[in-house]
Every structure is written in structure tokens, then in C-alpha cells.
């Protein structure tokens, strides 16, 4: 079984991002970048399937500027077998990413795509669902449990009321939630080994896909800020404030 894992390079989750003065975007210069945490979970899940003998090959793909190859290398260092780098200098929306991934899936024919449920930069939560629509495959979003049985996968999904279990025919798209697993760290020997693993380069122009954005970003601004209040000294004072000042209880 072949698994494709799309990985995105994003601002590290520990960074407190700031809006640029000209309000065109957030500040991305000299900011620590990492693999989107949900994508790490996706890579980890693919690796576990390989270790169980269910999967035979794991391919990591990333789309963007040459820097995204670092993210592919991370996936290779974790244990993925090979990478695909789609060289693309324009800004991409999930719709375009899904189209590019559709074209890659048609070419390499994976049995399963495991990807993050959302990227922590644009918080879209969309690419997996769009990709499965375009491929006309089944989707299992927000997965916290995954089991492969023959030509099907059983997935536990995190929904608003608890957990929902569904069965999806392969090939399928799975998007990961936080509880699916805890991703491993790449060991030093594996980081060295990853340097020799192959990464195929594709130029986005060669795919002949319309990647023109459908949303113009007019402005990126600071959210309304919240002022810190006061520290109270005791539970009695807290209750008094809630009752008489805030009037919420």
C-alpha cells in the first residue's frame, strides 16, 4: 500500500505572530518555521502503518518555494521513503493546493492520503475535503483512530458531540486530529540518512492548473486587544467582583 502525506511549512506554533505595520500580512521575516503540527501527526500515522506491515511506501509532498524542501526532509528524517517538491512561487489557496494534489494523486496513485486537518497559519481546515471531492474519494476528517481492514479503513472521528466511527473504501483521504498519535522526533542517524533519500521536483507550470487565487486579501489587521484586569486577593473578593462589578453571577 502506498501512502501520500502532504506537508506544509508554517510559522512554528510557539511563535507569537505579529501583524506587519502596512497591514498586508503577518511578519514572516526571521520567524521560526516548522512542519505544520497536524502534518507531523499524519507522517507519524503513515510510519506506524508501515511498521505494522500495512503500508509499503510513504511519499511526502510539499508545494511552494525551495525552502519547503526542508519540510520534506523533516518527513524523510522521520521515516518517509521519498519526497515530491512542487516548485511554485505564487501564493496558494487550499483550492489550488487540492488541485495540485489531485494531479499528483492521478499520477502516483496512492491508496491512502493522510494529511493534517488544518494548517495553523491560515486555519482553513479545507484542503483534505476539497481533495477528496475532486478525486471523488471518500473522506474521513478529524481522525483520532485509524485501522486498515482489506480495502477499507475504519476511522474514529472527533466530532462536536464526541466520537463518530465510519468506514471508508480505499483509496481515501484521512485528515488528522490531535489525538491520533504523538509524532516521533527524528534521530540524528535518520536525519543523516534522509539527506540521501530522493526528492522529485515538479514545476507547477508543467501541471497546467489554474492556481489564480479566488480571494483577494485586502487587509490583515490586529484583533481587538483585551486589557488585562486585576488580581484579586481571595475567593471572597473574586465572588464580590463577579456579583457586583461584572454582574455575571
Amino acid at each position, binding site marked *: 500500500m502506498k501512502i501520500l502525506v502532504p506537508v506544509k511549512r508554517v510559522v512554528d*506554533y510557539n511563535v*507569537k*505572530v505579529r*501583524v506587519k505595520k502596512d497591514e498586508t500580512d*503577518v511578519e514572516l521575516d526571521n520567524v521560526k518555521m516548522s512542519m505544520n503540527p497536524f502534518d507531523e501527526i499524519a507522517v507519524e500515522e503513515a510510519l506506524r502503518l508501515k511498521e505494522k506491515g500495512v503500508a509499503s511506501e510513504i511519499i511526502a509532498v510539499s508545494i511552494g518555494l525551495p525552502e519547503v524542501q526542508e519540510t520534506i526532509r523533516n518527513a524523510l528524517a522521520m521515516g518517509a521513503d521519498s519526497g515530491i517538491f512542487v516548485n511554485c512561487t505564487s501564493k496558494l*489557496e487550499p*483550492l489550488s493546493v487540492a488541485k495540485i494534489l489531485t494531479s499528483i494523486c492521478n499520477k502516483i496513485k496512492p491508496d491512502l492520503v493522510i494529511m493534517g486537518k*488544518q494548517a*495553523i*497559519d491560515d*486555519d*482553513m*481546515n*479545507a484542503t483534505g*475535503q*476539497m481533495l*477528496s*471531492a475532486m478525486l*471523488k474519494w471518500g*473522506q*474521513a*476528517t478529524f481522525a*483520532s483512530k485509524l485501522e486498515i481492514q482489506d480495502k477499507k479503513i*475504519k476511522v474514529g472521528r*472527533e*466530532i*462536536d*458531540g*464526541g*466520537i*463518530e*466511527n*465510519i*468506514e*471508508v*473504501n480505499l483509496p481515501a483521504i484521512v485528515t488528522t*486530529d490531535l*489525538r491520533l498519535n504523538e509524532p516521533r522526533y527524528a534521530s540524528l542517524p535518520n536525519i543523516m540518512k534522509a539527506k540521501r533519500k530522493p526528492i522529485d521536483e515538479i514545476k507547477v507550470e508543467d501541471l497546467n492548473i489554474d492556481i489564480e*487565487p*479566488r*480571494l*483577494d*486579501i*485586502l487587509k*490583515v*489587521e*490586529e*484583533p481587538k486587544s*483585551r486589557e*488585562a*484586569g486585576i*488580581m*484579586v486577593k481571595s*475567593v*471572597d473578593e*473574586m*465572588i464580590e467582583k*463577579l456579583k457586583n462589578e461584572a454582574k*455575571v*453571577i
Partner: protein
Amino acid sequence: MKTLVVVDHNNNKLEKSTLNTIKAAIELENVDLLVLSDSCKDICNELIHIKNINNIFINENDAFKNQLAEDTANFIAENFKDYTNILFSNTSNGKNVAPRLAGLLDTMIIPDVIEIVDKQTFKRPIYAGNAIATCKSKNKINIITIRSTAFEEAETSDENVGEVKEIGSLTTNNLTKYLNSELTKSERPELTSADIVVSGGRGLGSAENFQVLEKLADKLGAAMGASRAAVDAGYVPNDWQVGQTGKIVAPNLYIAVGISGAIQHLAGMKDSKVIIGINKDEEAPIFSISDYGLAEDLFKAVPEMESKLN
């Protein structure tokens, strides 16, 4: 210009966030509603009281009971192509279906909208709410999910105002199959629409210790929430998680107990009207957004607070 709101429900009852989504839709124009379920009647009985909507379209089919994204998205794509806007609530259902529909219709989804600036311009949070993007759409069809805490609820009338009409027919998908659900049972108010939320974090230390908080929540008639760390540790169920990648809440009162206040947590609760933080570390970031902070051990403060409230 026509606007459709896809009604979120659990086959018996309306999901409250739908009322906020309808309110947002009314800012657009010409609002119709769509109910897909194995049994639409009770849901429609709630919907017919909502003001300023035109039609309530329904399709009753056993297959819709399980709300599979493949069925719902196909059905809407086939029957509502001529709409300008299709709105969903940003619930787990909406997040599952709306992007799939956008993929089918070749349109860029506009998720988690918090403000409608004009008919093609929308504001949405990015980077865990640390920035707000204003997006102008060039889509022919806008598929939008609405953050319910950013909009009021649609107004209702005592009279029946909506008209119910059947529409379309479903060809069921053979890609996915619903098996079962393990739903968290609770007598408490629903987390995303509660007036008061009591949330616990890693500081609680165990599932048993959460009972200390639950007593306080029950005294206040509050919903329970949690940080990711508390869910990951297995203290509480996943559907309690508040934050960037969990639920977004904005109650009148949010009580954060044993929660440090990571950006990802704040993203889910910083629009609450009043926030209180209880944490033994007086440097905890939660205090920087708390209206009232109490730097004390929670195992002392919470039972004391519970006993002093009446």
C-alpha cells in the same frame, strides 16, 4: 442573488449555532434554508418561526441520518448550483461538508467568518486569531462557514412564517459508511452556547480531580470545557476542548482553572465577556487576558468558591 443556509441538527433538534448562521445570512439577501435528515418535522417546527427567510427546503431520506459529507455535498451541489451564497455553521458538521462542496463546485471556501463587510467581503481570523484577514471574494458561489459566537441569533416570531417545500432526490454514495457514535452524555448546557463555561487544564492532574471543577460548574449552571493538555491526558472527553483547533466559545463568564493560557487556548475563548483565571503561578499568561485573576492553588480556591456561592 440567493442565499442558502444548510441547517445543522442532530435529527431531532436544531443545532443552536444555525440561528447565528441564519442571522449572518440575512445580512446577505434572500435566505432559504435546507434541512437534510431522516426526519425533518421537529426541526422544521423550530425553523418556521424564524423571521426574514423565504423557503425551508427539505429532503427526507434515511441516508441523511448519518450526515455523511459525501451525500450532503453531492445533494447540495446538484440542487443549489444557482445560489450565490451557501452558508454553514462552523461546527464539526459544517467543517466536514462545506469544503467538500466547495471542491465539487470549484470555489474557494471562506471558513470561520466573523464579519460580513459587504456582499463579497468577509473577515476571518488567521494564525489562531492573532490576526484578522479581510478577504474579497472573486468566487461565483461563496461557500462560507460562520463562527457562531460572532453573530447574534436570528429573530423568531410566535407565528409560523416559513414555508416548507420538498426538493431534490439523493443518490447515496458508496464510498463511506457510518458505523456508530460514542457521544458524551451530559445534562449540562452545550459548551458553545452556554452562558458560563468552567474550563480545566493540566493543573487538575487527573480525571477524578475534575470532579472538583464539575461541582463548581453545576453550582453555576455552567458548561464544562478543557485545554488540549487535559484532553490529551485523558482527563476529559475530546469534545470539551476549547481553542484554535477545538471549540470556539464566548460566554458571559469563562473560568479558566489550572490552564496556563497558551495562544492556542486563548484563540478559543478570548472573546468571552468576562474571563477569570485561577492558577497557582502568578506569572501564568492566562492572567494577561483575565478580568479577574486569582493566584492560588486550585484545590483550595475552587472548593472554597463552590461552597461560598449560593
